[in-house]
């Protein structure tokens, strides 16, 4: 490094400081620009920002700009020229930088060094607020002002502020509900729908918190979301049903394989067919002998789950003693038939021939049934296997859990929220049970299927969480429409959508909602019990039309409908009572 270059070193160091200062300003300008765009997108409801995020954006840009300014490598000629201009060196520095090696060039450098050494870098490059810094400060202030005023309740009246606070509270609830929904597994057939729903809910929540939507718009959006959530929930229920069917199949295959191992020929059982007369004979014997079902409840259940036909079931349900008795009764019946044949000598030939055919047919059936019973004679091993299967705590537990899951799937379809913890525990238990039911040779395929079903359930495909989230999503409707609490129970969430929630049984409601059960007719296919919830408007006192004002016209319309026989006669009284009760309220 030449003497002249050394003389410029302090200026280069100073330029790093000044460069960082300038870079900071440029970075802040850029950050303000980014923040401005962000705020614009926020106002356009395309993206959402808060103070922290905006500050981080500006700060990050400022830091990046500062670092870039500090590490920026300035061209040596540019530095020399700058020092010339600022230090009024009459181009000594730039000439020294470019000069060759002759005597005059050395003289130029010597002259430049002596002049440069007299200069103070801090004086030449002061740290002062220049236009860039001013622009940066004004930009940030402008963005902050716009964002602050846009989000501030300062410019709102008391009523508007109150409404805004309510909406913000509802918005918080929506965001809270949407959060776990957005954290669902990223794969699976329902994941895309769940994510979109979560995204839409988040957006609605943010809009509400920022007061970007009014109550009516929020209601419309919420209704759309509710419909979307309902579709998602139904899809999840269907998925759950499919998974349960898989689990049932797996369980049946497991039981059948265990019985097959014990010697039961399941194909033979499936092939059993009894005539009506045979079945009537067995039933007659059952009544006459006073047979009770000696199979334990577990054994009967297992037989149910084996999927046996009614014919095989009638025989298989009999205990060994009962089968002995039936065999004996069959022999007796055959003997009686033989006796009847013997007594028919006095009959005319035609009648005797007909009787003989009937008796032969009955005898053939008895023989066939006796053969069947012999073929169904279960060995001790089979009986033991059946007992073990019935008494196996793991199998019992598995079946129980399956039943509970079915029950919950049913509840889901009815719009009830399942207990997520319960579902989680159940899934875990089923997994453990599947592990206990080890039989590598014959049940490998079944276990694999069962495990797969359990894993899918655990991974969320089987809707245990989906149901929870969907139900929670529906729950936000309640919060949105009635932020103050009260109102209907969670199962009444669609009341405001104008839909009718159908159920097999009457639903219990909570809060202020009144319910009216109406038995109606659905199409041509007979009757179906349904419950139509007719609650007061969820907007309550904030309805655009006063309740008292609109009630008489509705009541009159209802009475007119009754008078014109438009309402089924059996419901006329209920309709009148309903409107009377509204009038009292």
């Amino acid at each position, binding site marked *: 490094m030449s003497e002249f270059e050394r003389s410029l070193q302090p200026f280069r160091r100073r*330029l790093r400081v*000044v*460069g960082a*200062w*300038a870079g900071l300003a440029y970075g802040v300008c850029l950050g303000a620009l980014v923040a401005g765009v962000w705020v614009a997108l926020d106002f356009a409801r395309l993206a959402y920002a808060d103070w922290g995020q905006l500050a981080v954006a500006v700060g990050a840009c400022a830091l990046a700009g500062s670092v870039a*300014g500090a590490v920026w490598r*300035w*061209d040596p*000629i*540019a*530095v020399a*020229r*700058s020092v010339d*201009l*600022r230090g009024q060196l*009459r*181009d*000594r520095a*730039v*000439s*020294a*930088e*470019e*000069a*060759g090696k*002759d*005597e*005059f*060039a*050395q*003289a*130029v450098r*010597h*002259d430049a060094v002596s002049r440069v050494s007299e200069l103070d870098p801090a004086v030449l*490059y002061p740290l002062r607020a220049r236009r860039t810094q001013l622009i940066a400060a004004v930009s940030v202030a402008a963005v902050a002002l716009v964002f602050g005023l846009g989000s501030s309740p300062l410019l709102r009246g008391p009523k508007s502020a109150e409404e805004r606070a309510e909406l913000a509270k509802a918005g918080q609830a929506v965001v809270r509900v949407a959060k776990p929904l957005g954290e669902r597994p990223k794969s699976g057939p329902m994941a895309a729908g769940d994510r979109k729903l979560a995204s839409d809910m988040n957006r609605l929540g943010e809009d509400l918190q920022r007061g970007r939507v009014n109550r009516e718009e929020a209601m419309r959006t919420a209704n759309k979301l509710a419909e979307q959530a309902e579709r998602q929930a139904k899809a999840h229920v269907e998925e759950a049903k499919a998974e349960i069917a898989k689990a049932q199949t797996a369980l049946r295959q497991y039981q059948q394989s265990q019985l097959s191992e014990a010697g039961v020929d399941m194909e033979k059982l499936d092939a059993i067919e009894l005539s009506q007369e045979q079945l009537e004979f067995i039933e007659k014997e059952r009544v006459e002998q006073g047979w009770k079902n000696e199979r334990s409840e577990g054994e009967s259940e297992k037989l149910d789950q084996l999927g046996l036909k009614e014919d095989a079931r009638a025989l298989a349900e009999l205990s060994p003693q009962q089968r002995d008795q039936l065999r004996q009764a069959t022999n007796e019946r055959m003997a009686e038939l033989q006796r009847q044949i013997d007594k028919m000598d006095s009959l005319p030939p035609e009648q005797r021939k007909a009787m003989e055919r009937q008796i032969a047919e009955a005898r053939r059936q008895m023989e066939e049934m006796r053969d069947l019973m012999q073929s169904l004679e279960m060995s001790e091993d089979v009986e033991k296997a059946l007992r073990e299967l019935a008494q196996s705590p793991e199998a019992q537990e598995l079946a129980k859990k399956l039943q509970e899951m079915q029950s919950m799937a049913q509840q889901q379809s009815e719009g009830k929220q399942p207990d997520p913890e319960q579902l989680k525990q159940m899934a875990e238990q089923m997994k453990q049970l599947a592990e206990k039911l080890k039989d590598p040779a014959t049940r490998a395929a079944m276990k694999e299927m069962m495990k797969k079903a359990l894993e899918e359930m655990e991974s969320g495909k089987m809707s245990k969480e989906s149901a929870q989230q969907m139900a929670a999503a529906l729950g936000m409707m309640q919060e949105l429409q009635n932020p103050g609490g009260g109102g209907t129970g969670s199962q009444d969430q669609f009341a405001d959508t104008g839909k009718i929630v159908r159920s097999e049984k009457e639903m219990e409601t909570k809060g202020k909602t009144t319910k009216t059960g109406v038995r109606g007719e659905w199409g041509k296919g007979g009757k179906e019990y349904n419950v139509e919830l007719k609650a007061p408007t969820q907007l309550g006192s904030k309805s655009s039309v006063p309740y008292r004002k609109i009630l008489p016209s509705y009541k009159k319309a209802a009475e007119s409908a009754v008078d014109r026989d438009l309402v089924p006669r059996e419901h006329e009284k209920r309709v009148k009572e309903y409107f009377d009760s509204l009038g009292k309220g």
Partner: protein
Amino acid sequence: MEAQQEASWFRDKFLEIKDMVGRVIVGQDQVVESTLVALAANGHVLLEGLPGLGKTLLVRTLSEAVSLPFSRIQFTPDMMPADVTGTNVLVQSREGERAFEFRKGPVFANLVLADEINRATPKTQSALLEAMQEHRVTVGGVQNELPEPFLVMATQNPIEQEGTYPLPEAQLDRFFFKLLVPFPDRADLARIVQQTTGTEEPVTAHVATGEDVLKMREVVRKVVLAEDVLARGLAIVLGTHPEGEGTTDHAKKYVRYGASPRGAQALVTAAKVYALLDSRFNVSFEDLKRAARPALRHRIVLNYEAEAEGVTTDQVVGQALASVERGTKDPIGV
């Protein structure tokens, strides 16, 4: 350091000559300095001013100061080229032999004053062309070298247009500087009157020699010119052109032809002299600014619109300078 000694000697010698000439030429410091700059830069000077402003006295005083022969040519319309360059004459020796002998004209001097050059015909004016550019004269097929240092100082009267022949562009371009000799102010005029009407006449001493002048020219060429400064100098020259890169609004509107490459050479060389005078070893933009008007003003050909509006070439050069100065920004704008 030798360079410093050379530069110091140059400055001292220059100032010594200037001081000596300045004792006689009152109130024309700028003209005296510029003439010396041209002398040091190996250029010729065109002086434009009213009669009686001391132009002839300047040349004579300068020749005395630098101890160089001086000749004066008073140009008239009937003057022939041979009256300037010299001619071959038939001479007879004592033995009776006759032969042509070249008789040197007045141009054969170190310092030549071509007084009222625009009164001569173009033919006679052009006789000076070769002498000014090549420092030699060709007569009868024979080249005759002019003595070094050689400096032509031509004068012309700006107001007497009747019976004059304006110098052609080619000849104007050969002048290093065109100096405008102003009328002295009241104080200077008083000094002139007192100095020239009294009994004591200022005495001019020999403070330099022809060798000194030649050495000064060598020193000038050593001055460092940075690329960045050269770029700005060229930008000034290009700024006088009506078209092309860096042209100015004035040039576009009023200029027919801009300054020639000789103008750029003159600009830079003169700037080097100014740099030495400022005790520097490098040319700066300030030096270029000082040299721009005298070096470029006579090399710009204005159009009729400029003449109609009274626009001068100095204004065009001023615009070019301002344009370059505006473009000279701190490359580190932090």
